[in-house]
């Protein structure tokens, strides 16, 4: 069957199935099991109303359970076992973790992930804040915002190609076609193969993600800046505050909550970063990160045990943010 046709049929089945399920299950509940009539009408209505939320939730709960909750548990189990050739699993407790800890490539990935964590959320938020503050004050601000926001729509892989062109390197005698090298040569320096310089190349990869995430930070922070009560700013002006004082002492403290949200959101993106490294260097020249290390283990080395252990490390790093988010969400609902 042609994939497009298969797609159309799946859409029809998926959407039709959903509508049918919701309609029929509600019908069944109201007409057959607990009809709101007869001697037990009142009790039936109550019972139906107790069951109905679960009818509404059921498909989502199944999907979430199967596709997100169960894998967490299963990955933990896999990280503690080894596959036995010919099928089946053997319990090895911490051996996979021990093996992983013994690999220099793992520690390289951990180091790089921490570098990413330090640099990318901070710079993205800072640039985003700067862009938000500046564009809010000028007439063509919304156009500028839209252009800075644009990389959000570009895939990590597309961005990798775009930046590979920026970093492109030709031999010293040739004309440089990468704009970075062209600028460096124009200023009298030597052209470099940027992506192969160990340690510093990490920062050239980070630039790609900062380029993508700044727009996100800007959009959210700009909304927060506009939400600041004007009286506070006016009062500061009356008191003789300069523009920089207003920004740092009046505005920033008031949007601190939003800054933290932006920061943590980008942090999560960074922890899962995979495509950029996979497409640009594939972890060569000391640019390995955890997600790519995990992919290497799972699908190149076919070592599910160590791969799952690496995935658990990512999960462990995400957990504090997860707890913090849940705690905040609960606080809000009270």
């Amino acid at each position, binding site marked *: 069957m042609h994939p*497009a046709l298969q*797609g159309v049929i*799946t*859409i029809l089945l998926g959407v039709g199935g959903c509508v049918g399920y*919701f309609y029929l299950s509600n019908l069944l509940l109201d007409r057959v099991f607990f009809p709101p009539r007869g001697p037990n009408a009142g009790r039936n209505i109550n019972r139906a*109303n107790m069951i*109905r*939320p679960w009818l*509404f939730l059921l*498909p*989502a709960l199944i999907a*979430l359970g*199967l*596709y*997100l*909750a*169960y*894998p*967490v548990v*299963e*990955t933990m189990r896999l990280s503690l076992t080894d596959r036995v050739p010919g099928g089946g699993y053997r319990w090895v407790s911490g051996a996979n973790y021990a093996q992983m800890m013994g690999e220099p490539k793992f520690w390289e990935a951990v180091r790089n992930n921490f570098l990413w964590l330090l640099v990318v959320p901070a710079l993205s938020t800072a640039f985003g804040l700067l*862009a938000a503050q*500046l564009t809010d*004050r000028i007439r063509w601000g919304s156009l500028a915002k839209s*252009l*800075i926001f*644009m990389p*959000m729509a*570009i895939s*990590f892989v*597309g961005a990798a*190609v*775009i930046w590979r*062109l*920026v970093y492109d390197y030709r031999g010293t005698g040739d004309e440089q*076609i990468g704009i970075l090298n062209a600028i460096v040569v124009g200023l009298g320096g030597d052209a470099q193969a940027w992506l192969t310089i160990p340690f510093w190349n990490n920062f050239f990869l980070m630039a790609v993600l900062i*380029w993508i995430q700044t727009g*996100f930070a800007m*959009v959210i922070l700009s909304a*927060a800046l506009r939400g600041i009560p*004007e009286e506070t*700013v006016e009062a500061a002006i009356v008191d003789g*505050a300069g*523009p920089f004082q207003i920004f740092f002492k009046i505005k920033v403290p008031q949007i601190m909550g939003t800054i933290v*949200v*932006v920061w943590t959101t980008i942090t999560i993106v960074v*922890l899962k970063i995979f*495509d950029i490294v*996979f*497409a*640009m260097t594939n972890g060569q020249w000391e640019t390995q990160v955890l*997600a790519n290390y995990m992919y290497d283990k799972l*699908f190149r080395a076919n070592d599910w045990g160590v791969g*799952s252990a690496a*995935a658990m490390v990512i999960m462990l790093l995400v957990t504090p943010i*997860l707890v913090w988010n*849940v705690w*905040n969400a*609960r606080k*809000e609902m009270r």
Partner: protein
Amino acid sequence: MDNIAGTKSGLTWAVHISVAVLVILWLFPTVGLLVSSLRTADQIATSGWWKALFPQEQVLQLRTGSPEEAVQEGDIWVLEGNLFENGAEGLSIRAFGTSSRDVAAYEPGQTAEMGEGEAITLTDNGAYRYTFAEEPEGGRGQRVFVTAVTPPEFTLQNYYRVLFDPSNREGMAKAFFNTLTVAIPATIIPILIAAFAAYALAWMDFPGRALLIAAIVALLVVPLQLALIPLLKFHNTIGIGKGYLGVWLAHTGFGLPLAIYLLRNYMVGLPRDIIENARVDGASDFQIFVRIILPLSFPALASFAIFQFLWTWNDLLVALVFLIDATGDTTVMTRQIVELLGTRGGNWEILATSAFVSIAVPLVVFFAMQRYLVRGLLAGSVK
């Protein structure tokens, strides 16, 4: 707040300039890709893309016609013609020379003396007048170096090659349709499932509701890396293996937490009166949902649909794991581009064009629906 007291006009200029710099920095890389995709392989390899935007100076080595064809005029022999006889129209000459040691010795209109009574006059459109004091002997024409300005030149050839050439080995046309096949069902299917769940979480009272919402918030940040192996095993067990069905299901599962979260946040904000009035009038929850909530939630549904579409279109990892099998028939664009990066990193014309084809669709969606995207971002994270 443009002109409140205390804002200096000097600062306003600084703001304009800084924003301009930021925009240029953010736009330049993408423009580079676009321009490169419109150039030939030769052009890309020999000069930076930024030079393609301006007329370029280049030094050409051309020849006059053969001296045999010179005509006698009084006591001199004259050969007239145009250096650009074989095409290359639209060029304009900045300077010319007859010796390789000084290729820009003369300006157009001047006369270059070459000794032995020979002289050549050249105008800026390439027309020359070559004079000889004595009857010239045969042989090849005189070598002339011209510094010419070539206008910017772009071509759609790369796009033709990548998308329509039946013999192309990059397979981008197929990958384009595969990507579309992945993205559209994976965008539509989660919406309805999420909308019903979000309604229950927003407007129905039942024990465990707060716990469920907390669980959704938690699942929002669970890295999908954890799901790869267990789900691949699961798909193999139930017999779908690698393929479209698997990738649709996976995207549905991974997209649901955000969908439910966004939609619930939106639905909670809908006016309570409308819903309670409908209840009083005897509408069932199902009717309220279909007739009132769903139409009112359109902006939130649109936001999520855009997110999910961008995410599924741009995705690489999920497709690698759940879709692309050994035959490679179901490859998606992101995967093709990574392949090109690996094997043919030097072929910038193909690479740039392929990448631009793959980012063009999200960019169109982005610019057309930016309003909904921003609204969704704000609902999804500012709290």
